[in-house]
């Protein structure tokens, strides 16, 4: 976003797209139409439908699904999901920013090696990594054994199937999505700008808040979006590490499509959920444009 060409340079390159341009774009457009626009339309239509006793969608119009979405029960679940996702994002940012900054300040060869370390977890399947956490956190697990061996605790403490376990799982799963975009921004920051700030009398805090943060802001925003959006809809971690005790919005939606077989209600939840993101994103964009 930072690297967007200025208006003048853009004008020099910009020509009306020709046939070749459209042809090159065609695969993407077809993909978007088939796998984004069409499913969203299906979701929208379903959300106004009813179901029969087997769970098949019956095409007769109703507002009922939306009334249910905005009942206190589901609003509270949505609120809790936003809370979990928000907390995850903050923790990821606090942990991820220094890591990204540190990596970006290394020599290119070391940078690549460190980035590789960030990516290595992706080589293993997500579920297997989650099960590994279960082995670590369970009552007679590695962490408890270690703490008991070190005589830090006398009795095993409950770690698994708690909100702590859910947060651990979420932060672990999404941390790389925070580090990578911040790294991309941080890598481009000219070190002399930070030095200039120091020369002009800024302390480390001032240099950080007035120079580093504004320069890496696009990366931070991208990271926040990349963590917050998927974290809010996550259901596997809450089931596996939270013991399915407390429902988050992702679990509720999943249940509508499988267990409860209430697709229209699931669709209504999905539509509201999608709209929520679109509106938030649009507001953020507008604010940014006004700032610029």
């Amino acid at each position, binding site marked *: 976003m930072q690297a967007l060409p200025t208006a003048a340079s853009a004008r020099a390159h910009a020509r009306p797209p020709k046939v070749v341009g459209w042809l090159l774009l065609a695969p993407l457009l077809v993909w978007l139409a088939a796998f984004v626009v069409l499913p969203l339309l299906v979701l929208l239509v379903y959300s106004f439908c009813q179901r029969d006793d087997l769970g098949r969608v019956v095409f007769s119009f109703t507002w009922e699904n939306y009334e249910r979405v905005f009942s206190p029960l589901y609003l509270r679940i949505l609120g809790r999901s936003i809370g979990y996702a928000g907390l995850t994002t903050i923790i990821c940012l606090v942990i991820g920013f220094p890591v990204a900054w540190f990596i970006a300040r290394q020599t290119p060869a070391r940078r690549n090696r460190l980035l590789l370390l960030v990516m290595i977890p992706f080589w293993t399947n997500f579920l297997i990594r989650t099960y590994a956490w279960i082995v670590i956190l*369970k009552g007679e697990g590695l962490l408890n054994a270690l703490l008991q061996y070190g005589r830090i605790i006398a009795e095993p403490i409950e770690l698994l199937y708690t909100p702590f376990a859910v947060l651990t799982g979420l932060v672990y799963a999404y941390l790389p999505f925070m580090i990578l975009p911040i790294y991309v921004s941080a890598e481009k920051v000219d070190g002399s700008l930070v030095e200039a700030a120091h020369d002009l009398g800024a302390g480390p805090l001032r240099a950080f808040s007035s120079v580093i943060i504004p320069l890496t802001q696009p990366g931070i925003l991208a990271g926040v979006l990349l963590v917050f959006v998927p974290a809010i809809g996550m259901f596997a971690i809450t089931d596996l590490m939270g013991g399915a005790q407390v429902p988050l919005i992702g679990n509720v939606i999943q249940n509508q499509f499988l267990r409860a077989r209430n697709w229209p209600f699931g669709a209504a939840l999905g539509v509201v959920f999608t709209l929520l993101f679109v509106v938030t994103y649009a507001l953020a964009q507008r604010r940014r444009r006004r700032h610029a």
Partner: protein
Amino acid sequence: MKIIPCLRILTLTVLCACAVPLRAADQELNLFAWSEYVPQGVLEAFEEETGITVNYETFASGEEMLAKLIAGGTAYDLIQPPDYIAEALIKNRLLLPVDFAQVPNFRHILAEYKGMPHDPEQKFTVPYMTGTVGIVVNTERIKTPIRGVKDLFSPQHKGRIVVVDDGRELVTAALYVLGHPLNNITPETLEQTRPLLAEWFNLIKLFDSDSPKTALLNGDVDLGYVWGGEAAALWNEDRKFQYVLPAEGAHLFVDVLAIPVGAKNLQAAHAFLDFVLRPEVSRQISDEFPYTNPNGEARKLLTDAQRANPASYPPARPLDTFRHLGDTGALIDELVTDLKNAR
């Protein structure tokens, strides 16, 4: 790779050409069954004997199976619904009748598992495995006697309980305690179970339908309200895990095999039905997944230890079965979501 579709078109042409459904032997079988329920060895033996390739796709709950079946996509040849889902499918004309002339081994099924309420005319389904839902007690940790659901959900066991993550099973347990028949699920009876379930939910540590035995084995919990087969596997692992059929009431579940409308490989489906009903094959399934085997001849082949497993073969007593609920399934889901949310 390209030959197979061509062959299929050819078969189709032949099929259309003759009025009599004469056709070449089926090449494959699309089986849609529970995860952890059909041993790999059984599938391989079937493939080797018949030359039919089995595509085994799995689901984790009867509801999930129904959702995917109705959504379409794959044309399954054989599905494995629980009894009450099979009943719903029969009522909605979504199952093809089984040609029992092609399944001679069906005679091994014990009389009590034939013509059950979900398929009273015994036309559409073949029982695969059956079982109960009951209480597992880690007797090394829990010294107080546990006889029923009331003893299980006692405040002294707070945080030491795993239950199946299945709304209907939990509601049924509450209905038993309140003295209602298990299929009497209406908005009114559901409302009556609410305070009781709310109390229980505060004591539960973990909701897990896929593998509730894991938390018990790991020592994270000491008590469970779980599938009989899971309890049987625990008992095989360590005799400290005792199985108790709840005093308030217990029900029998029957997982059946059935052929859905739209199945393409009918011959392969029937061949597989007959294959798994062979006593020695059925015994092999019991070896791996110790549920209650409805196959009388296969039971005779089991070891004494297998037959003595209290979770596989609990003391005989009259047990009800689940019936198709219609619309109330969604009400159960809302109640359970609401209660979990209130914790």
